[in-house]
């Protein structure tokens, strides 16, 4: 079909736009089929594929392991729900201490800074291991020795450090005029913090906060090193007993069941912000 250039009428231009769009969709579809199809074809025609399929994608072992993995996953869920609450509280507290210096609290601020540096600097698995095995060895009465509790404490400490930085970024993004305004209205400094600054700060950092929680929801699996029966450990038990890795796939599927809705939710929040305020940098015609 031939097109007359220049496109003079409105109808012509609309038609041309439709044509372009159809062509874009066709190209995207073909490219997707070719690239993904090629990739899949390459994998399933590999000489090792039948072995990989048997070892990693066995329906039999998936069914066989699923019940046990699911019961382990329940431990994960309970753990991360409790840890998340602790992390929110501790993280915010540390952020406040570090962001708003009070001379009398200098030693506390120093401690908070050291805490954040150390906790962020140690691999999570190492921290869990150190706390989980060293604390009970102290033989102190009244100190928890349960693997779930100690592992949870280690994770809460580790993630509080990260989350406190997220909160701190949020607190620092609130313009100083907001604080001045609060004080000018007759609020006390504490009230200003509580009713003016913190709500704005928290609202802005919810997406990165949830992002850290997604990471936490997977990292609870690390507590298995202390002997806790959770999803990854349950899967590993069946896998090692039978030399088949499929149970790990079952565990992965369960972790995805909680992390994917969470990632979608974070994305949704971010889009909502952009829709409300517009992007920070607008590109192209709008």
């Amino acid at each position, binding site marked *: 079909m031939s097109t007359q250039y220049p496109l003079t009428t409105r109808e012509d231009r609309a038609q041309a736009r439709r044509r372009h769009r159809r062509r874009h969709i066709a190209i995207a579809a073909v490219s997707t089929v070719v690239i993904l199809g090629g990739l899949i074809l390459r994998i399933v025609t590999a000489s090792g594929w039948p072995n990989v399929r048997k070892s990693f994608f066995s329906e039999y072992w998936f069914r066989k392991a699923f019940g046990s993995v699911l019961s382990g996953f329940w431990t994960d869920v309970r753990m991360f729900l409790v840890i998340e609450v602790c992390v929110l509280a501790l993280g915010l507290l540390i952020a406040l201490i570090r962001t708003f210096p009070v001379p009398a609290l200098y030693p506390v601020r120093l401690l908070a800074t050291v805490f954040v540096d150390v906790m962020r600097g140690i691999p999570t698995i190492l921290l869990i291991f150190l706390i989980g*095995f060293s604390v009970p060895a102290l033989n102190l009465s009244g100190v928890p*020795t349960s693997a779930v509790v100690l592992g949870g404490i280690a994770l809460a400490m580790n993630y509080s450090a990260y989350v406190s930085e997220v909160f701190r970024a949020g607190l620092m993004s609130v313009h100083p005029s907001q604080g001045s305004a609060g004080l000018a209205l007759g609020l006390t400094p504490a009230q200003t913090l509580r009713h003016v600054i913190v709500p704005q700060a928290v609202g802005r950092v919810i997406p990165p906060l949830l992002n850290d929680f997604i990471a936490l929801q997977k990292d609870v699996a690390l507590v*298995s090193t*202390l*002997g806790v029966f959770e999803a990854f450990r349950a899967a590993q038990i069946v896998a*090692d007993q039978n*030399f088949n890795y499929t149970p790990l796939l079952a565990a992965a599927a369960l972790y995805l069941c909680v992390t994917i809705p969470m990632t979608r939710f974070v994305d949704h929040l971010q889009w909502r912000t952009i829709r409300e305020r517009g992007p920070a940098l607008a590109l192209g015609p709008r």
Partner: protein
Amino acid sequence: MPKKFLFATAVPMLAASVAIAAGGPTAAAAKSASTAASSCSTSKLALHTAGQLTVATDDPAYPPYFEGNKPANGRGFESAVAYAVAKQLGFGTSKVKWVTEAFDSSYAPGPKSFDFDINEISITKARSQAVTFSTPYYTNPQAIIVYKNSALAHAKSLAAFKKASIGVQIGTTSLSAVDQVIKPNSQPSVFNTSNDVVEAFKIHRVDAIVVDYATALYLSSSEIKGSTIAGQFTAPGGDNWGLLMKKGSALAPCVDKALAKLRASGTLTKLTKRWMSSKVAVPVLK
């Protein structure tokens, strides 16, 4: 600590059990691994790297199977067995190359980095779907370690351990033995390495640990102060350790032939006595 499980295959098992349990040279009755291997002459072996025998084990490698974490020193039961098999295949000490292979990856599909892996791995039917095992070179009962001052030290039956919290290593026959024979009321605590199991016992996270008998002798006598072996018991179907080779390994028939010769000549019994023996009388629990 062993990654075991049991497998009731045919005659060769018996041969090994007899050789070890009774310590008798009756093992000569063992069938030769006469898979009619066309040729097991050294120059014609199907090897990972030509001109050398590549043997794998995990790192760290534990006593009494290895000593000083140096598989190449020929000391420790499995090191000695590996060199004995190598000698039968026509490789002198200098032609044996050791590589590290973690237990978890030893059964991954795809090419292997070794000719055989010797790592206290139990032969089971399910595992034989993924790899090829040699005939057994050792048969091992399970043992329960407790503290001498605990009530469990005088247990008269396995039922006494139902209420105990039990520590055990992942991927081991000990774990299956706990699940299927002791059937504790609560999930056992499952750890990544044998060191973690021992550590959890030392900090009293668990009341008792279950390991294979040979390991128990070593642990209770030299590693854990104040501990004792409460008793030994048989894992379901027995627990035979084999050399792990890639599925369908062409070398397997020759390795079996070498093991048969070692059995017939009494070498295997001699090595077992030298490295795994005990003068302690340990009650058999049911």
